[in-house]
C-alpha cells in the first residue's frame, strides 16, 4: 500500500490540480479522467468505479475530485470509503458555496478554462444545439457567461467571444483564487484519512 494520496480528478481541473502540486499545496499522485465523460453519465460512473477498484489495491488515501456528477458516485465513495470534495460540481469547487450561489442567482453560466476551449464541440456536436436553439435556451435561463479565470492559462478571449456570439449572452471574466478549491481538497483528504483509520480499526 502506498502512503501518498491519490487524487482521482475530472480532467476539467487538470491545470488547477497540477498547479497546486507545483506550488506544494498538495502532494501525491494525480489521475485524470476525460471531462467529456460527463456527456455519458453511465460511462463516467463505470470509469470512476474501475479506477477506484484498481486504486484501492495499491493506495490507502484516495480523494475523488468530482462533484455530484452521476446518480451513483456517492455510492462509490461509500463503497470504497474514500474522500470526496464536498461540492455539487467543479464550478462550485472553484468559487466556493456562497459565491456560487450569488452567481446562480445572477443567472450566470459558469465557464471553466478547459471547457471554454471545447465549447463548440460540446454545444454543437455533443448537444446538437444550433445557434438559434442555443440562443433561445440560454436566453431563457441565463443572463451572462462568466469565465472563471484561475490564472494558469491566458483568458481565451477569442473562444469566449465566439461562445458569447453563439449564445447571445454577454460575457465577463472573474478571477478565482485556487485557495478556495484547496480548502475543499484538504477537507476531502482529511475525510479520506479518517476513513483510513476506521478501516484499520476494523
Amino acid at each position: 500500500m502506498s502512503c501518498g494520496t491519490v487524487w482521482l480528478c475530472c480532467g476539467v481541473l487538470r491545470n488547477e490540480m497540477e498547479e497546486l502540486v507545483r506550488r506544494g499545496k498538495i502532494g501525491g499522485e494525480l489521475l485524470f479522467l476525460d471531462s467529456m465523460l460527463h456527456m455519458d453519465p453511465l460511462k463516467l460512473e463505470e470509469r470512476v468505479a474501475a479506477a477506484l477498484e484498481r486504486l484501492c489495491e495499491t493506495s490507502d488515501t484516495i480523494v475523488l475530485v468530482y462533484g455530484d456528477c452521476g446518480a451513483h458516485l456517492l455510492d462509490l465513495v461509500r463503497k470504497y470509503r474514500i474522500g470526496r470534495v464536498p461540492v455539487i460540481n467543479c464550478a462550485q469547487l472553484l468559487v466556493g458555496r456562497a459565491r456560487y450561489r450569488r452567481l446562480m442567482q445572477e443567472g450566470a453560466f459558469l465557464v471553466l478554462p478547459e471547457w471554454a476551449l471545447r465549447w463548440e464541440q460540446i454545444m454543437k456536436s455533443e448537444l446538437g444545439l444550433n445557434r438559434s436553439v442555443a440562443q433561445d435556451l440560454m436566453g431563457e435561463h441565463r443572463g451572462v457567461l462568466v469565465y472563471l479565470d484561475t490564472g494558469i492559462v491566458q483568458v481565451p478571449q477569442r473562444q469566449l467571444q465566439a461562445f458569447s456570439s453563439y449564445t447571445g449572452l454577454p460575457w465577463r471574466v472573474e478571477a478565482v483564487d485556487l485557495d478556495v478549491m484547496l480548502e475543499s481538497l484538504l477537507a476531502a483528504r482529511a475525510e479520506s484519512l479518517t476513513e483510513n483509520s476506521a478501516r484499520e480499526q476494523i
Partner: protein
Amino acid sequence: MNAAELSNKLFATMIEADRSGAARIVEEALSDGMPPQQVIAEILDPAIVRLGKQWEEQTMSLAQNYVASKIAEDTLLRCIPKKDERSLNKGAVVIGNIEDDFHSLGRRSVGLFLEAAGWEVHDLGNDIPAEQFVEKAQEVGASVIGVSAMMQTTALNIRKVRELLDQRHLNGSIKLAVGGAVFNWRPELVAEVGGDGTAHNAVGADELFLRLRSETGGR
C-alpha cells in the same frame, strides 16, 4: 398521421434538440383539429415517459435532458389554456427547488402540469430554504409542498423540510411530495428524505398531489 406516430416524431425532436421541429408537430396536430388535452395525453405524455426512461437508464446526459425537457415545456405551454381561462379548483400547493439546487426545469414543468390540471400553484423558485416552504404553505393554506432536487447531495437538504413539518405538527395537514431525476434513479431516497410520495415525471404530478391531498382529509 395518428397520435402515436406524432408522439414518436415529437420524441425524436426532443432527443435531437430540434425545438422548432417539435413546435411544428404540435401546431400541426392542433391545426388538424386535435383537442389540446388530447395532444397532451396522447402525444406529449408518452414522449415524456420515454424521455424519463432514457434518463433513468442514464443513456442521455444532463445537458441533453435539459434541452429535451425544454421542448416538453414549450409543447405544454402551447396546449394548456391561458392562465385567466383556467379553473383552479383543486386548491393551493407550494413548489420549489430545495436549498442549493438550481435545476429549475423539472420543477417548472411540474408547475405547468399542475396548473393545467387545476391547482393553484405557488412556485417559489430555486434554492429555497425549508422555512420558506413551510411558511408559504401555511400562508396560502396548501395541502402539499412539492420539493425538487436534481442531485443526491441537494436532495438530502429536503430532510430539513420534513423535520420542520414534524416539529410544527403539520405532518397531518401538509404533505411532502419530492421529485427530480435523482429520485427516479434512487427510489429509496424518497423515504430517506422523509417524502410522502413522488412521481416519475411531470405527467404523474397531478395524481400524486391528489392522493396526498386526500391523505390530509381534503377532497
